[in-house]
């Protein structure tokens, strides 16, 4: 059985990991997400941009002294998309 109907934005290992992480917290910063997903900064940055462009997450960039701090949080649209994705996955997993 193919995965054609699944949301292609979520059906990717790193983006799904990011969304699963953000779904259960209020906000998380870039370094925390990078550590938890064990990803590289470059790849993570690209995937976060894709999720943000789709409106699934909100990215806030601030400066803490001279250090940039990027904070992410999931949006209502992102929560709905994640819920749908999980429901569809559950359909595939049904015996």
């Amino acid at each position, binding site marked *: 059985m193919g995965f054609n109907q699944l949301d292609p934005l979520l*059906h990717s*290992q790193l983006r799904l990991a990011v969304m*699963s*992480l953000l779904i*259960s917290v209020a*906000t998380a910063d870039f370094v925390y997400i990078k550590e938890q997903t064990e990803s590289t900064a470059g790849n993570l940055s690209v995937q976060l941009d894709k999720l943000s462009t789709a409106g699934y997450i909100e990215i806030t960039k601030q400066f803490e002294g001279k250090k940039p701090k990027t904070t992410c949080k999931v949006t209502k649209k992102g929560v709905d998309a994640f819920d749908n994705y999980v429901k569809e*996955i559950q359909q595939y*997993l049904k015996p």
Partner: protein
Amino acid sequence: MEEKELTPQESMALIQSMIGKSRKRYSDNSFFFLLWGWIVLIASLTHFYLATYTTYEQPYIAWSLTVVGGVISGIVGARQGKNAKVRNYSDKMYGWLWFSLGMAMFTIVFNGQLINWNTVPFILLLAGVGTAVSGAMMGFKPLQFGGFAFWILAFIAFRQPENYQMLLLAFGVAIGYLVPGYIMKANFRNNGV
């Protein structure tokens, strides 16, 4: 993390593992319990002493210390929030719980004259709510026990004159804030939890 085609099982396992990673590990909040425990203990005992053993007419002056506590709490809380890599919904709830209780306590004390300065029983009740709920959120029994202690002391305080209410308040923060605060601090130092 490598990019590869996910199977449904892998997707589900990934979701579960990431959600598991972000499950709340409580941060060490002992600083605030110790700060407020000592401030209230010193202020209430000073108030009791001045009112009972001296002729000083403004024994409540001791409570100016709470302004210092408010400023320190604000600065430390803001700094912790800024430096935190992740903010859980429970952190947010925890912050709002104590902020709301702080506002309620301030409202009671500010309007204290209207209730003949019988503010302590109400303060004890509110402190009991905050302590017991914080304890339940963290799964930390000493705080829950402290919450019950506050409620029992509030029962007694309603039946005591203002001066003796101060002793009950001092006793309340000693067992409701300071004892759990020091246990929490020791737990974090020894086990990191």
